[in-house]
């Protein structure tokens, strides 16, 4: 006579306890870390370089210890900074037909703002006692101004925002051929509005 043998079932009742233990371990040892931020490049360290640039191509921003903002010799609110920076960068003051004429600029082409975006330099001077938080806000507005312009040109040329081009480029599942296409577009836009932000000790002569 054959008896039907059954495999005894493993008791899974303590599974929940084990999982809870693991869960609590991870809760204790882990932390959600913040990893977003403003990306900036510092200038190269080379001894005492002075460059001569035209004053119209320099957009001077300074922050004093009381966290007031001075742009081109007038005190302004932080909210106005982005628009002022855009006006400066997008001015394209070089006359048509001359070297360095900016065809894609939509600015007012005024005579005392930048000649073209490649020449345009934003200079940011801080005092030692200014707040870091305020400095970050100012940096944010400057980068924002560049992004607005790059987005505009991205829409015009490629029907796509600069920022979405960059985020597509950084996607993990992008293929190499897609990436090279995206990279070309990104480089084009960056060359149109190169970020030139300096934090100098400026000398006047």
């Amino acid at each position: 006579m054959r008896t039907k043998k059954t495999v005894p079932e493993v008791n899974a009742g303590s599974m929940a306890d084990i999982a809870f233990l693991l869960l609590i371990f991870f809760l204790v040892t882990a932390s959600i870390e913040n990893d977003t931020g403003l990306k900036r490049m510092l200038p190269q360290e080379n001894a005492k370089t002075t460059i001569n640039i035209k004053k119209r191509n320099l957009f001077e921003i300074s922050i004093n210890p009381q966290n007031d903002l001075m742009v081109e010799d007038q005190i302004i609110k932080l909210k106005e900074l982005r628009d002022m920076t855009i006006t400066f960068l997008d001015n394209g003051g070089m006359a048509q037909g001359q070297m360095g004429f900016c065809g894609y600029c939509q600015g007012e082409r005024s005579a005392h703002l930048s000649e073209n975006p490649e020449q345009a330099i934003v200079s940011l001077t801080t005092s030692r006692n200014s707040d870091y938080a305020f400095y970050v806000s100012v940096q944010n507005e400057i980068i924002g101004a560049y992004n607005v312009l790059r987005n505009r040109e991205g829409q015009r040329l490629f029907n796509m925002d600069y920022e979405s081009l960059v985020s597509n480029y950084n996607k993990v599942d992008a293929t190499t051929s897609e990436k090279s296409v995206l990279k070309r577009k990104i480089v084009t836009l960056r060359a149109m509005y190169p970020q030139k932000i300096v934090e100098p000790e400026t000398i006047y002569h």
Partner: protein
Amino acid sequence: MAKFAKKKDGDLPAVSTASLPDIVFMLLFFFMTVTTMKDSSLLVQNTLPNASEVKKLEKKDRVIYIYVGKPTREYQSVYGTEPKIQLNDKFASVGEVGSYILAERAKKPQELQNVLTTALKVDKDANMGLISDIKQELRQVNALKVNYTTYEGDAFNNLQ
């Protein structure tokens, strides 16, 4: 005649706990994916400022962290309330930043040594003097890629 057996009153059916492990495992996996391991405990206060034009730091192995802020309460009696720099697990002076960066860079694999980013995790109450000194140090060791770590938010909230 109805043949339904009358239910005995009073005893509730037991709730099945068979799916409990699944739920807990789900939670566990959630936490495992969204968190990272703590590598150094903070000795300084670290409330980051807000910014809207942020980029994500993509690869964790290419980042060197520098923390700046007031010492936390338990260290204030020893180190005072002026903002300090924290490198790894201890306080440091500005002069040590350069050698710290070089040491960290030497620890990374060769092919990553040129693409490292320095993440500056600076408390919003710090002032610019210390930051300029750190930046100067970074320039001297040619660590030019910098990320001012911020929360994603409205930059105008920093003013209050």
